[in-house]
């Protein structure tokens, strides 16, 4: 899309990355693009002009500005802070705030402003610095503090050397869209949630047999799509969902402000999916009411939509529990991070042949590692462990997954 391009009404105009997904915004009017108000990759606040379209024909009408009508890049915080308006060419910050930003090496252009109309306050800068500081790093001492960093007047001829310049990366990629949402969510998750992780070894022999049997059956029936969708993932999903029925504290969410744990009646299952834009977690709604075949088809469809950037924001919301099959990436043992407000995340690694003792004899069996993270505020080693044991049982005896059907 460039200035001078002719556009039709309802034509796909621009891809907008929200925190959750990529949304295609249709063109609101037919005409010629008169102005692009933001470069690709920029952030716009709701209500800002995205593009100006000069209407076709008589040209009498005023240009139709397409404004951002949905929260593009809405921040998860309740009072969505806005990035400082750039109209005046520089961030709105008072001199002492600008100085503080330099001291803390914070780029004011990236600071979320909490002052009126985008004014950046000193606290905003300090908050931004804290958010970007590596864990455990002490904030730089205030050089204005008496005595700090000032060489004594009697210092020898060694001059106060400039501090090491920050390293210059070859390329700077702005933290935007999906990446930014991941960064924010996982920062919060890792900082807030006391993770405990239960690691288990699973004999996946029968799981593979079950998967193969189901796949054969689908092929015989001509259900090619289902056959392709029948990877171990839907079986793992089904095992987890069945286990959750007996372990309600794992299918829960925690609200520290209200000091409540919500135990969910349904299982809305998040399925971690790698995409070119980054990790996405589309949600299979009411997974507890789906058959393995339905889960397989649904998971496959969601994964495809995620990779093709077709997910709608609604398909990314509301998970009560998440599974993450990182075996496809070659991972043996992973560390799943819980996405708040959920309280658990089940990770499973690659299935590989391993020598394991079977009834006292070494045997080669397909084995995989299961790692389930739990929020220790809600789950203890025993409650999480009980759930994981049940999942292991179901994975090692997949017939039990279908127990309800008998």
């Amino acid at each position, binding site marked *: 899309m460039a200035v001078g391009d002719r556009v039709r009404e309802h034509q796909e105009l621009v891809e907008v990355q929200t925190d959750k997904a990529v949304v295609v915004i249709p063109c609101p009017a037919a005409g010629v693009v008169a102005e692009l108000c933001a470069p690709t990759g920029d952030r716009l606040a709701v209500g800002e002009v995205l593009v100006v379209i000069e209407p076709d024909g008589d040209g009498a009408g005023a240009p139709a500005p397409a404004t951002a009508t949905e929260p593009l890049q809405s921040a998860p915080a309740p009072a969505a802070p806005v990035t400082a*308006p750039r*109209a*005046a*060419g*520089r961030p*709105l*910050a*008072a*001199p002492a705030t*600008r*100085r503080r930003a*330099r*001291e803390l*090496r914070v780029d004011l252009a990236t600071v979320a402003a909490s*002052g*009126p*109309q*985008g*004014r950046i306050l000193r606290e905003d800068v300090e908050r931004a610095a804290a958010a970007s500081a590596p864990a455990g790093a002490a904030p730089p001492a205030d*050089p204005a503090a008496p005595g700090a*960093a*000032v*060489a*004594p*007047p009697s*210092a020898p*001829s060694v*001059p*106060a*050397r*400039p*501090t090491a310049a920050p390293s210059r990366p070859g390329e700077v990629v702005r933290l935007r869209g999906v990446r930014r949402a991941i960064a924010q969510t996982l920062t919060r998750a890792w900082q807030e949630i006391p993770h405990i992780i239960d690691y288990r070894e699973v004999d996946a022999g029968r799981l593979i047999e079950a998967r193969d049997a189901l796949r054969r059956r689908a092929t015989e029936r001509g259900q090619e799509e289902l056959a392709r969708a029948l990877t171990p993932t839907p079986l793992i999903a089904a095992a987890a969902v069945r286990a959750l029925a007996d372990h309600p504290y794992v299918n829960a969410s925690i609200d520290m402000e209200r000091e409540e744990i919500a135990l969910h009646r349904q299982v809305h299952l998040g399925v971690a999916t790698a995409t070119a834009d980054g990790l996405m977690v589309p949600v299979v709604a009411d997974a507890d009411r789906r058959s393995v075949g339905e889960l397989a088809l649904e998971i496959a469809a969601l994964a495809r939509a995620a990779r093709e950037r077709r997910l709608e924001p609604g398909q990314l919301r509301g998970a009560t529990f998440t599974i993450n099959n990182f075996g496809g990436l070659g991972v043996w043992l992973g560390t799943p991070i819980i996405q708040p407000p959920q309280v658990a995340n089940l990770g499973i690694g690659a299935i590989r042949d391993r020598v394991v003792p079977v009834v006292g004899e070494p045997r080669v069996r397909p084995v995989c590692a299961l790692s389930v993270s739990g929020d220790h505020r809600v789950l203890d080693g025993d409650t999480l462990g009980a759930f994981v044991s049940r999942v292991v049982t179901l994975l090692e005896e997949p017939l039990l997954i279908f127990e309800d059907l008998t």
Partner: protein
Amino acid sequence: MVVGELAESADLLVLGGGPGGYVAAIRAAQLGRRVTLVDEAGPEGLGGVCLQVGCIPSKALIELAATAERVRGMGDMGLEVEGARVSLERFQAWRERLCLGLAGSVGRLLAAGDVTVVHGRARFNRPDRVAVRTEEGQARFFEFEQAIVATGSRPVELPQLPFDGERVLDSTGALALAEVPSSMAVVGAGYIGLELGTAFAKLGTRVTVVEALERVLPSVDASLTAPVVHRLRGRGVDLRLASTAERLEGGQLVVRDGDGEHYVAAERVVVAVGRVPNTDDLGLDAAGVPVGPDGLVPVGDDLRATGRVAAIGDVVAGPALAHKASAEGVVAAEALSGRPAAFDPAAIPAVIFTDPEIGTAGLSEAEARADGIDARSATFPLAASGRAATLGATAGFTRLVVDAAVDRVVGLHVVGPHASELVAGATLAIELMASPEDLAATIHPHPTMSESVHEAAELLLGHPIHAAGAGAPR
């Protein structure tokens, strides 16, 4: 004294003792640096152009001229003065004491910071070394860790009117006159030319101002200059715009305009057509410091030109103003001392001591619009100011410019008495992103000119108290 190529060591070397250099030296000393400052005028000449031959003496002369004129013009108010006479000779003696006293103060400040002041002319001869030719004709060499170039600027000479210190003067020469000339031609209607022309006109000199452009004071919004032009003409100053100074012919200056050549009485000619940075004879090449075709040294936000050399004041881009140089001096000293410092003011105020004075801070409405700002302005006429009335000087106005999108003050433009004193407050408002409501809700003392800022804010908000019928903001 060390002779030959044996170099003395200097931790931070500052070239120039003007308002940029001496401020940088003091700040660096505060940060624990061992500072050596080199100035060609020596300890008695500290303070640079500003203190010696610029801001300070010119304001003193302007004060004298304005007071002389005012006391003669206050008969209506009841002041009867007899025998008031201006002696420029006595003024010069007083001025000398004034400048010596101030230079002495600067010297004491530098001494308090253990800054070594070297009297001489410095030239880089290596990236880390300067040669200083002292007053006695000797050379001293200083090997420095870091240096700050603050050598300022000098008046531009016109080839057809070379400075001779007698008939053709620069601003320094004009300020050193010990007698009031009967006639004076001022070439250049920038702020230096108009300030000098106004002062001498008040002292009784027949003044002609010759300006090549179509307007005076090209650095400020044209609307601000109207009261100034009106007053200049009112006191008999011959303002010749779109005219060029051609040559001296006998006692007269030949001026050319669209109609041809004219002869202008000119016992003295003062050429004030601009200033050129003092960067041509510093050996900056040897220091690896680039110099642009305009003579300016390109620098970054931290005012460094190279890893070890910073440049400030008139030798870098931006208005050639003392307060800008001083602010840059602080930044350069901090940056070279490892502080995260940058020169990034939201506004650099400017003051012009014409009659009436002009004071500006931030953007004019036109500049703001050119920057893409949704600019609004309100103009409060001084005719409605009680303080202006008591001063008998109601020509002028105070104009506030705001960014409507973010509701903040982006500019204040004042033409009127004491305008120079009003812009600091406005600069603060701009830096702190005050809204017009903030200004309107802030109590300004009565009776002062500063109330006009408050009134302009009220006007902008649509509810002025002292400007009934002034209407909605433009």
